[in-house]
């Protein structure tokens, strides 16, 4: 008979709220980087995702991700409508908090993942097509991948893949889906010939700062208890963000001046990279994980630019590549001395963990990229993915929402 721990439950509820706060934080992080005629649209793409996925999750999303296993690939229908998900703990996931608290915490992850993708198609996506895409994507990409990695009986869960707080489930899926969607929707009008100057970098700094705070819930809460693992995740999270911010500062300084937008982007990339590792590695390892993440994402942005691909806000470079590095680094730096429920990585004498991580990421990348390509192309057959040239020129705030941000 499991008993509910008040401290654990309180921490998971607070962490859930912190993760939800990351969505508007992300909205402002992204919003600062678009042109001022698209700021409301960009904020709204993130905000409406909260509404959409909250409902999706209650109705069937949680069940598909965490319901009774079917062949290791998808959850069953036993938690439809959160039936049977109540105040009693579910020992498969978190033995000391109400099952419903776990479902609520996981809901916030399901929300922020499609929100991350929006950076790929801002300033041109048609709102209607976006709504359809987001619900289908959450159902056909997020829910299955969450089941594979985190669900009881999930195929990579069985294999022993480590993903503490969603480096693979959240960041790799979002990043590579962003890449796929960007290739389908095409570049913004004027991309490559005009300069798309960020219209409000202070918004991005504010957003990145709030993301950092929210990430304590994201990673710290993923211990699902107010315990030593949560504390370890808290400290590694902060450390990796700091290291990546510093390294990005030097990279941008080397190329010109220490860009503020660059420094805060670096911190976010550090947070992404430590996500899968936070509860399994030491603070010193976190410095390496964050510090190496910065040049990976920095030069991934350069590569993306050199290919003339308008993946507008670099979701792939920051989340896809940062998450990939973090998930691989987990296979290098994980240590049972830090977390006995985890595993040893390559540097602790267990090379097979690295291979498990590699296999998991490889399959998730192919699945997320391929499915998103398929979903977006199918939607494009039914309804246009992007607004008309004229509507794009006017800006989505007015053409899609009939509002303007600044008067």
């Amino acid at each position, binding site marked *: 008979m499991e008993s509910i721990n008040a401290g654990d439950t309180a921490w998971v509820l607070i962490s859930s709220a912190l993760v939800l706060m990351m969505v508007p934080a992300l909205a402002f992080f992204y919003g600062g980087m678009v042109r001022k005629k698209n700021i409301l649209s960009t904020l709204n793409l993130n905000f409406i995702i909260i509404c959409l996925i909250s409902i999706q999750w209650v109705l069937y999303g949680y069940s598909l991700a965490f319901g009774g296993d079917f062949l290791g690939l998808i959850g069953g229908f036993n938690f439809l409508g959160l039936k049977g998900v109540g105040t009693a703990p579910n020992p498969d996931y978190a033995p000391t908090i109400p099952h419903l608290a776990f479902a609520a915490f996981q809901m916030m992850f399901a929300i922020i993942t499609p929100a991350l993708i929006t950076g790929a198609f801002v300033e041109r996506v048609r709102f209607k097509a976006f709504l359809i895409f987001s619900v289908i994507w959450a159902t056909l990409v997020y829910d299955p991948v969450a089941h594979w990695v985190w669900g009881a009986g999930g195929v990579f869960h069985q294999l022993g893949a480590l993903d503490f707080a969603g480096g693979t489930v959240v960041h790799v899926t979002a990043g590579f889906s962003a890449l796929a969607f960007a290739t389908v929707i095409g570049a913004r009008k004027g991309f490559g010939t005009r300069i798309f100057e960020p219209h409000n970098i202070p918004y991005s700094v504010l957003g990145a700062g709030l993301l950092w705070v929210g990430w304590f819930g994201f990673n710290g809460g993923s211990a699902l208890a107010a315990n030593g693992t949560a504390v370890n995740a808290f400290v590694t999270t902060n450390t990796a963000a700091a290291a990546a911010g510093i390294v990005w500062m030097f*990279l*941008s300084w080397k*190329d*010109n001046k220490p860009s503020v*937008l660059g420094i805060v982007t670096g911190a976010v990339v550090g947070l992404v990279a430590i996500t899968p590792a936070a509860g399994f590695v030491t603070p010193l390892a976190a410095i390496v994980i964050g510090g190496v993440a910065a040049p990976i994402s920095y030069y991934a942005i350069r590569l993306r630019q050199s290919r003339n691909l308008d993946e507008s806000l*670099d979701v792939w470079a920051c989340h896809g590549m940062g998450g990939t590095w973090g998930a691989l680094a987990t296979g290098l730096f994980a240590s049972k001395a830090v977390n006995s429920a985890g595993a040893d990585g390559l540097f602790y004498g267990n090379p097979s963990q690295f291979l498990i991580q590699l296999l998991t990421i490889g399959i998730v990348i192919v699945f997320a990229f391929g499915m998103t390509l398929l979903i977006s192309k199918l939607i494009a057959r039914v309804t246009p993915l992007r607004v008309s040239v004229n509507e794009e020129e006017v800006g989505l705030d007015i053409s899609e929402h009939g509002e303007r941000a600044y008067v």
Partner: protein
Amino acid sequence: MTKKIEAIIREDQFPDVKEALRKIGIVGMNVMEVRGHGQQGGIVLAGRTGTYQIDMLPKLQLNIVLSDNNVEKTVQTIVKAARTGSPGDGIIFIYPVEEVVRIRTGERGHEALMYDNDIDTMPKNGNHDGNGDHSA
């Protein structure tokens, strides 16, 4: 004969220019925020990675309408106060003005430009501190 001076200057120099003009008795002016570039061509900014160039920089445009005979003194004052010596200091255009109408009184032409303590009402080469009516 009435002229309009249109001076495009650096935002940073505006307080100095305004003060210098006040001292020679320029009471009325209006200012517009404009963007543009001349020979300077723009500046390089830092992006997330690397740099990008912007060519439209913020400037202020002063509009001053006054009598022909005070134009040169006013232009010299603006040049002296607005100049830093680096590219991007700005430019001054001078136009003839067809007609002036003061809305409050309906006065027209030169009369519409006559303010108490204004450069146009003071004796030529007069030494005036210009602390007059700025509300016009």
